[in-house]
């Protein structure tokens, strides 16, 4: 039955516009980075074309494969938090928006399995998005003929991006919990975006390594994973567990009007 739950969630996602919207949005991002690399590499031409303002300051920026990879990882981490929040809020929130939650929760299937099924589908779709993003990005990078290309750079970029993608996903159940609790997309998205804003604040207060959203941002900004204490990873795992258990308990024991 668990397989059927995942399959039905896949069918629902396949027929939804959100699938293509998220794919389109995520695949646009590398083009933005590419444009940035191109500007940094040839600022005079960019200025001639009106792409640079008079106060533009490109000091310290470089158009190389390691820099390009760094930006890609940042997009997967920070952008992933937003995109995943959107995907998860949609998967859970549509059941309330369409009024189908009541049909789903009174079926002969453990309610927790619906939460698990939706998160499995979110993970699957997120994986597809990240892989497509990386493939597209590397093609663009090769097209730009950036200096510093090597197998080591590619490997470390892929490893960092996948690590950030995984870390971002660990916060997906928290968004699921917020959606089930509020029974709407908007509140969940608000909470996710608010958490992201808080992550920036925590970065300035010295508590960033304790706040899960900050941890993902630190990972995505190229700070070596060794720089983070083990407790930061524990915080991520605890957030994942709390989100999952909370969502399951709310579906199982809460009122579901």
């Amino acid at each position: 039955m668990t397989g059927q739950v995942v399959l039905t969630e896949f069918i629902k996602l396949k027929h939804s516009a959100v699938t293509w919207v998220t794919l389109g949005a995520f695949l646009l991002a590398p083009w933005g980075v590419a444009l940035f690399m191109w500007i940094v590499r040839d600022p005079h031409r960019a200025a001639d074309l009106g792409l640079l303002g008079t106060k533009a300051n490109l000091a310290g920026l470089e158009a190389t494969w390691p820099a390009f990879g760094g930006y890609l990882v940042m997009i997967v981490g920070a952008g992933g938090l937003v995109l995943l929040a959107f995907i998860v809020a949609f998967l859970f929130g549509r059941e309330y928006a369409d009024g189908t939650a009541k049909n789903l929760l009174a079926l002969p299937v453990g309610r927790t399995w619906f939460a698990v099924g939706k998160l499995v589908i979110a993970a699957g779709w997120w994986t597809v998005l990240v892989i497509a993003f990386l493939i597209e990005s590397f093609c663009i990078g090769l097209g730009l003929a950036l200096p510093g290309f090597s197998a080591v750079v590619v490997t470390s970029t892929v490893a960092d991006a996948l690590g950030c993608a995984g870390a971002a996903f660990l916060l997906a159940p928290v968004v699921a919990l917020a959606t089930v609790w509020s029974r709407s997309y908007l509140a969940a998205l608000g909470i996710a975006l608010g958490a992201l804003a808080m992550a920036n604040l925590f970065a300035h207060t010295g508590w960033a390594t304790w706040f899960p959203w900050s941890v993902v941002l630190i990972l995505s900004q190229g700070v070596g994973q060794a720089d983070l204490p083990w407790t930061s990873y524990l915080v991520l795992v605890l957030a994942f567990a709390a989100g999952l258990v909370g969502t399951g308990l709310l579906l199982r024991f809460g009122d579901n009007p």
Partner: protein
Amino acid sequence: MAGDAVIATVGLTKRYGAIQAVDDIALQVRRGEIYGFLGRNGAGKTTTIRMLLGLIRPTAGTVRIFGHPIGGDQRWLRRVGFLVETATAYPNLTVAENLDLQRRLTGATRASLTDAIERLGLAPYADRRAGRLSLGNQQRLSLARALLHSPELLILDEPANGLDPAGIVEVRELLRTLAGDRGVTVLMSSHILAEVAHLADRIGIIDAGRLVEEAPRDVLAARARDYVRDTFTDAERQEALLTADLERYFLAQTGPERTRTTP
């Protein structure tokens, strides 16, 4: 009597803060009977039905379906078909796709999908997206979903919502057949007495969250006749009869060819 009760509630109560939505309801619905749950809008019918399905938790009291307390293992829901409040479906999926999701999650056969579509007259709309269906056809889709896995118990909240008079008669006949031929137990709620009176073996009346009256249909009908005779004038009674006659005539004109009459 309790032994063959498919639905049995004791002291069923639901409070939302100061609001008493359902108050100490004791329901007994027997195997194979059609139970009409009658009440005005906001009387507590839907809240009761949601508690029967385990969607909301009672503040007090117990619910037993097929003798098993609800909660925990949800496998008993395999024996239950339901329609709660408004008809809902995934708007981006077609009628057939919506029913296929239900089929997969209830373990029903592929043949049952076709059967449910045919039975509810949805064949012309099978490939139409649910979001583009009329209100009546959305209701038919929800009823098809409830019947898909051949449940032993049907819990239907306002099943005639959105249906035209001919559709109401079709659904009425369908439920009568299911109860009579297959022994399906039906609990149906409505705020329209006529709808319940046509079909139910027993009727429970809920008001302000309390079950204020419960009796076999014939007993309740006799009480109603006495009440109408004592309360309304002859002209008012004639008016009511005329309305009923007009409805029958409309049904004859808009129903299947064989029932059509010449004016």
